[in-house]
């Protein structure tokens, strides 16, 4: 009984970690830059395809594809930020939503055209397959790896935001862009870098997630709801909020499906409603 529960808890944490990794970039654009980027899932999908292509076409090992997926997606994010997104920073939210939804549909059509409509397979290296025993408990090796990666990345993000000069620049650029500009911070560069970072993390999440979430051209639409849930419940603009929200949602989603499979798929929506009633601005949202 207890072993079952711990197993469910672990699966939920792993699933939540993945959701967090993909959603954190959305939290950055939505909360810090005040931009509604519904095309965020498309960056995750791009990372997934980069990973699959590298593996199947050029035989690059899975682990080596991960940093490349991050870099390529970040670069594409930076280019799009400079050419397209930048024009809409001062536009209304409706314009941003319409623009990014349009971008999503273009990404879906493009991916279908290039890679076809079917699911992309991914072959994990032997050491990440099957189950391993940890303290007498059987857990999926890959899920353990996922959790480890997300812990490392979260720590790195927290350190970056709170201990480095760049983090300080980001926080001041967000708090008051005009003043930040006045004291010599290159706000537009800071925003570009943040956007690239968020996109890159989504791409990394997409690549890591193929084995759990699958990868096909409808990916950005299929998971958009989950990413938005994480940011809405957690509160945009923080790291802690989406992290706690993603873990909560992951655990409740998995536990719901395990213990009450008849209604399991609806648990997270119920949880969202309850949490948003209790915390209208999100768990760690900044009240304005």
């Amino acid at each position, binding site marked *: 009984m207890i072993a*079952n529960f711990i197993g469910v808890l672990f699966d939920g944490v792993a699933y939540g970690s993945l959701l967090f990794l993909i959603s954190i970039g959305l939290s950055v654009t939505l909360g810090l830059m005040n931009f509604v980027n519904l095309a965020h899932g498309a960056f995750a999908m791009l990372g997934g395809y980069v990973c699959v292509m590298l593996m199947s076409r050029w035989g690059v090992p899975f682990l080596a594809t991960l940093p490349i997926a991050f870099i390529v997606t970040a670069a594409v994010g930076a280019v799009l930020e400079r050419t397209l997104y930048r024009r809409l920073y001062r536009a209304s939210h409706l314009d941003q939503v319409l623009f990014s939804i349009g971008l999503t549909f273009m990404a879906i059509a493009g991916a279908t055209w290039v890679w076809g*409509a*079917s699911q992309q397979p991914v072959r994990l290296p032997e050491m990440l397959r099957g189950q391993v025993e940890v303290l007498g408990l059987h857990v*999926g090796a890959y899920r353990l790896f996922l959790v480890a990666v997300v812990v490392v990345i979260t720590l790195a993000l927290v350190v970056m935001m709170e201990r480095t000069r760049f983090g300080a620049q980001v926080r001041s650029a967000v708090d008051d862009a005009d003043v930040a500009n006045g004291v010599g911070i290159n706000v537009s560069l800071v925003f570009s870098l943040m956007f690239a970072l968020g996109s890159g993390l989504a791409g990394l999440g997409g690549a890591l997630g193929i084995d759990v979430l*699958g990868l096909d051209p409808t990916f950005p639409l299929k998971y958009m709801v989950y990413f938005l849930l994480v940011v809405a419940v957690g509160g945009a603009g923080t790291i802690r909020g989406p992290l706690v929200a993603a873990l909560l949602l992951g655990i409740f989603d998995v536990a719901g499906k395990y213990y009450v*499979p008849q209604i399991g*798929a609806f648990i997270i929506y119920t949880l969202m409603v309850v949490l948003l009633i209790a915390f209208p601005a999100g768990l760690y949202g900044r009240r304005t």
Partner: protein
Amino acid sequence: MRRILFAAAMLAAAPLFAQEPLKIGVIAPFSGPFADYGRQFEGGIKAFMKVNGSTVAGRKVEILYRDTTGPNPEIAKRHAQELVTRDKVDFLAGFGLTPEALAVADVATEAKKPMVVMNAASSIVTTKSPYIARFSMTLQQVSAPMGGWAARNGIKRVYTLVSDYAPGIDSETGFKNAFTAAGGQVVDSIRVPLRSPDFAPYLQRVKDAKPDAVFVFLPAGEQGIAFMKGFQERGLAQAGIKVIATGDITDDHVIDAMGDVSLGMITTFHYSAAHDSPENAAFLKAFAEVAADKGRPNFMAVGGYDGMAGIYEVTRKLGGKIDGDKVMEAFKGMKLASPRGAIMIDPATRDIVQTVYVRKVEKRGNSYYNVEFDKIADVKDPGKP
């Protein structure tokens, strides 16, 4: 004088020249997540016309493809209405998914247009209009034989896991009824949402119940791959749990993408690309020639092929004069030699009667195939009263 004779000859020949093409409107998903369904139909149809020519009973055959983009009843219905009123088709055909077929049933009834179902596999489809004949399968037809086979082969306790929509519930019902009637025990049943991204919690539940086997129905394609991955990751096979399923999960079109996980999996189904017969050899050869880009043909390609065979046969019988009621009469009791074996259209239900095979996944060279090792002949749809 010669002029008059020539004119008379022209007049006499006129009906021949005025012969309209035989128009077949094919409604199916050609884009979106189910795009492979439409592509397989198209390949099967082309393969049939490659073997049998593009003229029947003096009429040139013209195929009009219409894309529903997925399980969209409104779009399917609109296409059907346009095909009937504007394009004046003789047959409506295709239908990858049950909602498409159900949406068009009324149009077929109203316009008295024969509707040839090439896949949509819920039991109820043929009951929705007297103008529907099915050349594919029903889910109960392939899942019930698995119930009997499992009980006869030492599988006593089974957990069922199906997609939560009509075909899933159909296959669950078919399996359960046959399995319990043969003395087996269904431990528990889970219905998972159609868009379930992660099977982990469901599979853990199955593992903890320690059944002899898990019976699975998932729509052909991505879900099957995700399920098998999870099955392997959770170590269910090591826990002594077998997977038994309808052939959707080891669909010929996706089985190579699944790889070694599928080895040894036992499924019941009506078609395998590995079926050994001259008809199938001819079909595979023609498909490879006309639809090389569509990969290996699967049961949907065969549905397209046999649907066309039915249309050709009926058109020949009626001498090229298509009339909805006469077509349906001619369909009843029709027998064809299909790439899957002998098939017949049940005169009472207009549904297909066919052999269901028990198959096991084996590796041949670098590819994986469903190799048939047992069969149950002349299976009717158990879902019909």
